[in-house]
């Protein structure tokens, strides 16, 4: 069965506990939301991501206490070019929420969430290594998978699959 069309109006989704909590805190932090294929996505304003994560983690009605994953998607050549994607999980409520931060292509940077979840450390290092997105406030932001002296960020779309020859 094909999926129903995605809901992209924030107005229709504002009753979701995670979105409601964020809106009650700071409406400017929520840039938009999407409900598609049973998954909820919240677009967070770039400078609010760390506080938004802390808020959602400690939300008493809907604690998103577990960070599943941090990754990135490169939408080259459009702008904003990068989307940093956070997958949060509520162990008690058994639900997931996806947060997204959009970043522009030149010197992309976003605040690190390692102070909220220490487990974000390796995930953010991986995104830094493979996409070149900087995480400010990260305790040890160095390449993790590629060698230290590697040039370029392999998962960027303008990086050829075979590498530079």
């Amino acid at each position: 069965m094909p999926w129903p069309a995605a809901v992209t109006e924030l107005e229709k989704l504002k009753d979701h506990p995670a979105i409601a909590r964020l809106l009650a805190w700071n409406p400017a932090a929520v840039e938009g939301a999407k409900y598609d294929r049973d998954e909820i996505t919240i677009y967070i304003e770039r400078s609010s991501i760390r506080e938004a994560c802390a808020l959602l983690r400690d939300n008493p009605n809907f604690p998103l206490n577990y960070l599943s994953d941090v990754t990135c998607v490169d939408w080259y050549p459009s702008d904003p070019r990068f989307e940093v994607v956070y997958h949060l999980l509520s162990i008690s409520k058994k639900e997931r929420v996806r947060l997204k931060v959009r970043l522009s292509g030149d010197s992309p940077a976003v605040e690190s969430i390692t102070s909220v979840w220490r487990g974000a450390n390796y995930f953010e290092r991986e995104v830094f290594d493979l996409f070149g997105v900087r995480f400010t406030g990260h305790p040890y932001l160095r390449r993790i998978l590629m060698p230290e002296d590697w040039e370029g960020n392999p998962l960027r779309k303008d990086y050829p699959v075979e590498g530079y020859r």
Partner: protein
Amino acid sequence: MAHLTSVPALEPGQDKTMILNMGPQHPSTHGVLRLMLEIDGENIVRLMPDIGFLHTGIEKTCEAKFYQQVVPMTDRIDYLCPMTNNLCYVLAVEKLLGLEIPPKAQWLRVMMNELTRINSHLVWLGTHAMDMGAMTVFLYCFREREDILRLFEAISGQRMMTSYFRIGGVALEPPLGFLDRVRDFANRFPSKVDEYENLLTGNPIWMMRTKGVAKITAEDAIALGASGPTLRGSGVDHDLRRDMPYSGYENFKFKVPVAKEGDVFARYMCRVQELRESIGIVKQAVEGMPDGPVKANAPHVVLPDREKMKTQMEALIYHFKIITEGFAVPEGEVYQAVESPRGEMGYYVVSDGTAKPYRVHMRSACLANLQTLPSMCEGRLLADVVAAIGSIDIVLGEIDR
């Protein structure tokens, strides 16, 4: 990959401590994990894992393949549980497509998935015990693992890189008599688990090496993103198969073993109990195996049977089209997670509406579990590092991808 010389955080302090390099080629690092240890005598002051030696850029390669061509790539990530990775990927793409899978295919997937879990846990148990000096267990475990690999070979033609699952179902009907062989194995296996447990569970040497060693609290485990037996060993009752069921797991009855202590022994107990639960699921799958097709009725996605291809024009056309130009997947994104033997294995697949995935990201359970290693080992003895590495059951292929 970090280099020891370029790590200022691990400079020896005041001539009291020294830096010890462990790995990457070391029998007890389960692959090519390198650990940098700052030690004070035999005590670990700091531990830093260094990974990336097996990085093959699979995520990048996936972006250049058709959706169906990615399936064999997913085997290569975690070579001990190929079917779990297959399953996670095909579920993600099926979710993107909105494809419904016939019950028999789901049952087969669950059955093979649990056999994979047993296979993976057997390798873990054997090597973990060998790391700590119990050589016999290794041979016992590999005896049963061989049976499972033969089952894999019978159903998929491959012992390790199975690629048995397809988008929309499974590759083939299982061969004649296959379910009887699985039933036979499932009846035999619980007594074998007793054998392993006889060798280890009450063994005073084993208990001394594992009890109270490399402890981690539930709060730390959650904060560090640990999952699977590493999380359940610390008393967090969370299993995706039960809590967020996929592929028909809601139809099976099983318990989720949880231990409170958070030490190596607790994680050992969780996995050994899981062996018993998994074989229970395999039995249920064999007994309740529904009849019907093993592939979804979606000719634009699922390859036709060989027979139809030779006799029907449309089937031939679909076959040609799927092979040469793939199939378009509607725009969107999906995060699908499954409970792999090591924890939460997640695939994040982004589609831009073409026949090739725009982005495939694998959430590696091992990568997150590895982050717990420093908190487990720091302040403890050097000899416990080997026990701790074994107890989080890492596969470096999955960490580095």
